């Protein structure tokens, strides 16, 4: 009987996965494998389609030893990550904890923090970025992305700040912008997690005289630690793969130059670096995650 139940469960479980598996096989695994082949070859365009000639590690060698920007960009990107990911994690947890409390206007603030997630994507971003004024004002400030510098500098100018002061303020504002705008999904996930913490635990703690601070570290934090792990993965993935990440920009540029094989080589090396970082972070955090055992 028990074996039957097991068998039934496993069959059904697998069946449910099939449509998604087909999708991920066709549009993720297969393309990914093809791109490995590209990475080790030279592509030529023939009337019959793409032709690949195996050249060994040439693309990788070129990226590592000839390309002046690739390694440096990756190192910079990783360095930024070290700073950014913990800050983003703390910020979103902090905001989620606040938004989880009962106060007037809570729904309004939740909407404000979530709205960017909905409008921030794709074409809208491109249109905003290619905005004429934005680009003109941004001209002196290389490496800026998003609306950040654009709008803030414009606004500050119109209020009457001096350009010198703006130059100091902008990078600061820029990072707050980036942080705030990537915190939407993490906040939402933390909110969901916070609401599953049993109220009874807090009641007991209050009766025992625990302070809010103690309650947070002894109840809230351990209870939502699985979500902290998940959010870390999400934030890392988001950071490393958004179109504004410098490495992704570099790879996109190569694709734009029709150098698919070189771009494939770059992406695979990047993927290995990113994968290693994520694996390390996971091992470290996973040790501290509290899984509730029923």
């Amino acid at each position: 009987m028990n074996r039957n139940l097991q068998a039934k469960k496993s069959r059904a479980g697998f069946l449910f996965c099939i449509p998604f598996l087909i999708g991920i096989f066709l549009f993720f695994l297969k393309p990914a494998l093809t791109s490995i082949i590209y990475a080790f070859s030279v592509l030529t365009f023939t009337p019959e389609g793409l032709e690949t000639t195996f050249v060994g590690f040439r693309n990788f060698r070129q990226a590592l030893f000839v390309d002046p920007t690739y390694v440096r960009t990756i190192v910079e990107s990783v360095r930024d990550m070290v700073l950014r990911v913990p800050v983003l994690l703390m910020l979103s947890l902090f905001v989620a904890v606040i938004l989880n409390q009962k106060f007037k206007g809570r729904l309004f603030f939740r909407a404000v923090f979530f709205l960017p997630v909905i409008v921030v994507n794709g074409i809208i971003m491109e249109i905003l970025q290619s905005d004429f004024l934005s680009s003109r004002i941004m001209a002196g400030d290389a490496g800026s992305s998003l609306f950040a510098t654009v709008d803030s500098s414009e606004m500050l100018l119109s209020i009457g700040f001096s350009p010198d002061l703006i130059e100091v303020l902008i990078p600061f504002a820029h990072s707050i912008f980036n942080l705030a705008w990537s915190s939407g999904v993490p906040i939402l996930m933390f909110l969901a997690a916070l609401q599953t913490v049993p109220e009874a635990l807090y009641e007991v703690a209050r009766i025992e005289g625990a302070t809010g601070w103690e309650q947070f570290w002894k109840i809230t934090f351990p209870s939502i630690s699985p979500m902290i792990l998940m959010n870390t993965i999400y934030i890392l993935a988001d950071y490393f793969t958004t179109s504004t990440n410098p490495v992704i920009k570099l790879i996109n540029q190569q694709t734009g130059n029709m150098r698919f094989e070189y771009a494939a080589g770059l992406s695979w090396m990047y993927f290995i670096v990113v994968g290693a970082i994520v694996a390390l972070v996971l091992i470290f955090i996973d040790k501290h995650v509290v899984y509730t055992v029923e």
Partner: protein
Amino acid sequence: MKNFFKAQVGNGVNRSKFGTSMIFLFLIVLSIFMMFPLVYSIMQSLKPYEEIFAFPPRFFVHNPSFDNYRNLFRLADSLFVPFSRYVFNSVSVAVIGTVVYVIIASMASYSLAFGCFKGKNIISDLIVKALLFTSPVTAVAQYLIIAKLHMLNTYFALLLPILAMPFGVFLMRQFLIQMIPVSLIEASRIDGCSEFRLLWSVVIPVVKPAIMTLILFTFQNLWNNTGAGFIYDESHKVLPSVMNELIAGGISRAGEGAAATILLMLPPVIIFFLTQRQVLETMAASGIKE
């Protein structure tokens, strides 16, 4: 004594007036940063020409006008294919795609969260890998696959790749694990509930807020998809790529660009307001407590 307890219910802790106002200040500052680009684009779209090009630029609009919107619609009217066709393309792709993906993602995430079959962990790992590997390179190979399936210039070219979107399954699986006690699943199974019914009448109602969130994300994602690379046939193009073409005039189309931004934002924002109760008040309403 009674009062003492009353004050603590809800908020959990007594906080000083100062602390509360600091937290509000923090929220407000952050909110300003959040809303800024939105407000800015609205302002831009309402500015007449002379204000858009004014120097020094001003943030607020002085003489709001709908000229930009009017011009945009005039441009749209002059298109070779009727504008309504693009709207139809976009809406149908976004709606059908959302429905299909939500069904597929809930099924997959359910089995990844509560099923027990070989390879479950491998698939979960794969999803995380796929999250880390959104790269323009797979786009080339994806194109070849779509071409081989003879699906270039069809709606399928826009719809099929979403089957592989890892984010929704990742999110749903997370919500399911957080929100549904394993004991509920076990109890239903022992009572002889079929897996399909378990998903449909036990799991889905409980995680309705999560489903709403998934709908929102998926719609937004599909709505913003330009279909670049897969669609060359004019009559199969979707709104974002058409809008992009319309405003390709650069400087001279700055105002129309802002108007297009606002118009494209509208549908996802409408969906947001329709689902916001569920999405924002989320799981508190699920009624499942351990």
